């Protein structure tokens, strides 16, 4: 019960803090906070139209649209995380709890549109993309529920990646320039637009094994399709990354000291 309350308090603190993020960034705009939802909505509408009608992608168009929606959350999180550490962070955040809430709120802020747009996607799937799937309403709703459970896991994965990335970006500022290019490559190498299962073992292993986000879109495909052969190789790099980050940044809360040291840089 005690831990339950602590967790609820932690989650509501993250949500409250991310609200301030919205308020601050959209204060001067006429539509204000609504832009955070309008942008991905426009993007999804364009992708849905392009991949369903113009390119006749059939039910694949639905996977592309959902995949790009999830990828936009990951890419905006990773891109912005290179600027999250500033000297002012040390004025208020020197405990593990404070720093975790600070980072989670920033990540959550980038993922919030996905939570709101997933129900819209259920409707889009039923109306535009259902000819190939032939999903009943309950099946579509089950897909939605699976995604609702999957996205928090994704937020936690991003948490374990962004803290080390923020620290490294302070030490190696060039990373800020490299990350967008890396993400662009990763987008095309993930099973969103195409699936890298070419029967060329070397090529497939490279594409699936060296992409830390490949497994996310394998799970996306698995959630959407009734039968899907998930690439097991794609899980190896994320496991290595998480283990490495745990040992070097999270074990004994080393990241608190690391953040303290690098926040004075630059």
């Amino acid at each position, binding site marked *: 019960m005690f831990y339950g309350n602590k967790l609820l*308090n932690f989650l*509501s*603190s993250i949500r*409250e*803090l991310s609200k*301030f*993020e919205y*308020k*601050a*960034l959209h*204060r*001067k705009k006429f539509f204000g906070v609504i832009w955070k939802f309008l942008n991905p909505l426009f993007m999804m509408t364009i992708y849905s139209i392009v991949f369903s009608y113009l390119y006749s992608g059939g039910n694949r168009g639905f996977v592309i649209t959902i995949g790009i929606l999830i990828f936009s959350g990951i890419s905006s999180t990773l891109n912005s995380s290179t600027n999250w550490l500033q*000297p*002012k962070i*040390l*004025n*208020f*955040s*020197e405990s593990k709890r*404070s720093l975790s*809430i*600070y980072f989670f709120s920033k990540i959550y802020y980038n993922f919030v549109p996905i939570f709101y747009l997933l129900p819209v996607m259920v409707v889009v799937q039923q109306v535009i993309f259902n000819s190939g799937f032939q999903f009943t309403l309950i099946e579509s709703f089950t897909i939605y529920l699976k995604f609702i459970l999957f996205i928090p896991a994704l937020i936690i994965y991003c948490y374990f990646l962004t803290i080390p990335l923020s620290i490294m970006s302070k*030490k190696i500022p060039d990373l800020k320039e490299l990350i967008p290019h890396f993400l662009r490559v990763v987008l095309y190498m993930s099973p969103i637009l195409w699936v890298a299962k070419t029967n060329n073992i070397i090529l497939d292993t490279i594409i699936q094994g060296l992409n830390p986000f490949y497994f996310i879109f394998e799970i996306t495909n698995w959630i959407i399709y009734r039968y899907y052969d998930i690439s097991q190789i794609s899980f190896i790099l994320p496991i290595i990354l998480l283990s490495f980050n745990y040992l070097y940044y999270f074990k004994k809360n080393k990241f608190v000291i690391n953040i*303290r*040291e690098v926040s*004075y*840089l*630059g």
Partner: protein
Amino acid sequence: MDNKLIISNGNFFYKNVKTYNLKKAESKNNQNSLVLKNLNLELESNKIYGIIGKNGAGKSTLMKLLFGILKLNSGTFIQNYNRVKLLDSPNFYHTELNSFDNFKAIYILENNDNFNSEDYQNKLNTFKYLTQLSESELIKPISNLSSGTKSKIGFALTFTFVEGIDMLGLDEFFNFGDKEFKEFSSNVIKEKINHVGTAVIVSHSMELIKNICDKTILIHNSEINSVDDTNEVVEKYLNL
């Protein structure tokens, strides 16, 4: 056991600050030149220390050494304070938010999001008192305020949440034009520091140093020139 901080025979070279965004050429040319040498210093607890010296003398470097952010190349460094905090800018969560939202954001980070609690109300009252501003100023976004008003809010946001710190560092933190508020903030700091233990302040304002500090450290020619009573050290510095 008393808290203590002792540096003996300490030396600090440029090569240690290479990563601190010094220009490449500069760091190459000065790879082995000393920033601070022959450091011998012992800070007593429950005292407020000032650090003064000319621009580039190494005041901020000494501050970072004292707070363990930079490490000495040679010499001994002993520090047994439990919680130390070095502040070099006022405490804003976001300058596009108003003062109350900034306060709430920092309250969430420091405590929780229960804005109905007694603790929240107490801290809010402290915050309002420390700003010495009217409500109408506090509801404006920080970015729309004058630099003097921003400083007041930054000061209040910082010192509302300074609790349980053993050693506090303020590096060029003060820049208030308003004489009245300068005096008010000096008294608040003095009171807070009496609760928290030792404090070290870097400032170019001799008025502030004289007003607050018990002892002052003068850095000259890459060395600690003197550590003594503030008035004497300031006098010495002005005659350099």
